[in-house]
């Protein structure tokens, strides 16, 4: 097991380097330059001034030299500074982490709380009316465009009912509130974004659980359990559920990079200062240092998530052992 772990970690190193090479190459070959977005089509800014900016950012050097310079800096954990505002890329990324992780952890928890019971229920009462209704709801959740749902919820709960604020992460007067007031204010702001970001993944997970559960319920040991005279409750919760939840490990493992990934659409609609917007804006502005920084961190977390998922799988399922 330990050997396996070491092997996995060592394998990850060339993968991460490969990812950075590919990210860098994709970025380099993407048409467009960081200086475009800065200067748009504005007659106040002349073509010569643009050319000068271009040189200042070192963008006139050959690509391998740019990559090598970048790699040298990353080796000492320096991701360079953003072309947009001159701040260090790692500072910009770290600044976004708390808000992003908060939103994503909450929505993963909500997703599990809602999706697991829903999936189990659908499986146990297969083809019942409730199952069918759930199926319809799940597909609506899955296919409704997120930004549209978000806007509708904003209109209903923000404008008409006035229960929750429409956008932002904290109120205008946040700094003046007491601790309790701050918590409440933050919670109020989080309700709608958390619900909206849960919808899609809720649909997927509850389907997984349902089919996992259906598979398990067909197994011989479930029949055995029934024939032992156990109640349905005991069969489902003690015997079936444990096995049906195995895929959950993979899904949660894979969602670790998503924890910091953020969603551009949700963050934009709710004016939420998360990683998704940072990444998207960086791509649109060709802000290379920030794009690369996010790329490396996401790659790292994806690999980490995979390893964690593999290990927990082995721990949870004795049939699987790694050598």
């Amino acid at each position, binding site marked *: 097991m330990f050997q396996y772990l070491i092997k996995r970690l060592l394998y990850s190193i060339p993968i991460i380097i490969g990812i950075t090479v590919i990210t860098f190459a994709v970025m380099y070959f993407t048409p467009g330059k960081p200086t475009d977005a800065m200067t*748009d089509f504005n*007659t106040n800014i002349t073509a010569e001034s643009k050319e000068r900016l271009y040189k200042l950012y070192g963008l006139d050097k050959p690509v391998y030299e740019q990559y090598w310079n970048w790699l040298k800096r990353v080796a000492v954990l320096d991701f360079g500074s953003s072309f947009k505002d001159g701040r260090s890329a790692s500072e910009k990324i770290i600044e976004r982490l708390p808000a992003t992780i908060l939103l994503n952890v909450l929505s993963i928890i909500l997703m599990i709380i809602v999706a697991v019971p829903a999936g189990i229920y659908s499986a146990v009462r297969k083809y019942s009316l409730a199952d069918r209704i759930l199926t319809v709801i799940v597909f609506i959740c899955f296919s409704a465009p997120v930004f549209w749902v978000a806007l509708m919820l904003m209109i209903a709960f923000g404008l008409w009912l006035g229960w929750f604020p429409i956008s932002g992460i904290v109120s205008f007067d946040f700094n003046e509130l007491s601790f309790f007031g701050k918590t409440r204010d933050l919670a109020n702001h989080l309700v709608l974004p958390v619900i909206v970001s849960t919808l899609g993944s809720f649909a997927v997970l509850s389907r997984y659980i349902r089919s996992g559960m259906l598979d398990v319920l067909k197994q011989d040991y479930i029949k055995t359990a029934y024939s032992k005279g156990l109640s349905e409750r005991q069969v489902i919760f003690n015997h079936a559920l444990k096995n049906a939840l195995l895929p959950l490990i993979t899904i949660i493992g894979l969602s670790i990079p998503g924890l910091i990934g953020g969603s551009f659409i949700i963050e934009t609609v709710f004016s939420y200062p998360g990683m998704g917007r940072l990444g998207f804006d960086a791509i*649109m502005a060709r802000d290379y240092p920030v794009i690369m920084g996010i790329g490396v961190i996401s790659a790292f977390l994806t690999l980490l998530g995979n390893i964690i998922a593999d290990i927990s799988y082995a721990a949870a399922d004795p049939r699987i052992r790694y050598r």
Partner: protein
Amino acid sequence: MKNKIKKPTCRICTLLFVLCTFLFFSCSPEKNDNQNVSSGGSVPVYGDAYITANLSDSSYLNPILASDSASGAANGQLFNGLLKYDKDLQVACDLAESYDVSKDGLEITFKLRKDVKWHDGQPFTARDVKYTYEALTDPNTRTPYSSNFTIIKKFKIVDDYTVKVYYDAPFAPNLQSWMMPVLPEHIFRGQDINNASANRNPVGTGPYKFKSWQTDQKITLTSNGGYFKGRPYINRYIVQVVPDQAVQFLELRNESLDSVGLSPDQWNAYESFFEKYDKYRYPSHAFTYMGFNMSMEPFGDKNFRKAMQYAVNKKDIIDGVLLGTGKEAAGPYPPHVWAHNPNLKMSEYDPQKAAEILKELGFEDVNKDGLLEYKGKRFEFTITTNQGNKQRELTAQIVQEQLKKIGIKANIRIIEFSTFVNQYIAKREFEAIIMGWSLALDPDQYSLWHSKETGPRQYNMLGYSNPRVDEILIEARSTFDTDKRRKLYYEMQEIMAEDIPCIFLYYPETLLALHKRFKGVELAPIGVGHNFEEWWVPQALQRYAFSDK
């Protein structure tokens, strides 16, 4: 002044109110939602906050590094230039007390105001102007505005409050270049301006002082008691980041934002949406056009472009895309700019004439499929525009439909902005484009139309070339006399109306909703924010109170 007698009472009221706020809402700001109380008095009072929204966060609160409009909003309140445009778009003094252009146009002398203090209390002097000039011309400064200042031959401090600038050649837009905000020398001295901490914690001379900046959330400014034109009435100036225009509109309905830029469909929304808001519209300094790559066949032919112009109905575009909020364009200057030639004839919509011209040029429907052939082949071309600008996309669709009526097949290609600029515009790989220019207020358009400005990353990408226009552009920019310049630009517009370097489609308008509680708002040719320091909110209508000051 007619309410002079009322004044003392009002002051007492203010005092009482401030006291009350202090006693009861000591952990303010607190929202006072007493909208129904009638607005009392017409004597300006201090207080309240103004909250506006931006689609993205600012980059630098340093006006010589920032080029995004988001930073512009805050920087405009934090800093001043030596000169500015007044509400009627005329050059006026700001930090300068007076300015003088020598007869030959080679020297400009600025006398500076002596009563200006930086936000940290230091006096503003000629050294600050010199520092700003040096920063702008320093090759290591990441500024997009260097070229206006690298042409300066010599910069001289005459005394603490007088500076003199020498140029090699007379250049009229130079006056405009001195509207560049001045930076404090004592803050930046000895620092790398690109990474100075003051870029996120600025010290300026403007009506508002910097208070806080929460990245991607909001920037808060607070009124500057020592402002040289007097303390502004509104206590806070807050720029919030709301990256979605639909959400901005919802926040408007919720009264959480005081001013929001509107899209044409929002502008035309039900009146009930704007119960608490006044709507303002005024011309933007911009035009939108459809241009052809004149180095290609048959777009280089003036008559072909003329036919296209006849075939395009600008009125349809304004009605369909802008929902009436814009004006048909006849040339490169919007009507509110002094260089605009009012005698310019609007091009007419006449598909019949368009068809006739095309026929003369050899376009013919040989195979009777309703589409024209040219030189034995089906004639079609592609209109390219950038993604993310819905108005341009819709305009392209309307033009496509209109061209179909005269038998021309136009395809539309919509491409992400940066790609569009680099792959298509810079390499001149396009047939037709729909684009816009946001213009400087000085009418010099040398870079747009001069035949020497056609290099890969230069702005005359359509490849327009007319020797007389070249002459005019050079002569007009070296003339300081407005009347002479105007005459030249009038002539240029007439030539262009004949040459059709592009089809000038429309002049867009700025559409704005502003909360009704603000008094003293004045709409002028330059827009509505020009006298922001004089805006105020009657006591009873104030929504936000602050315990500090």
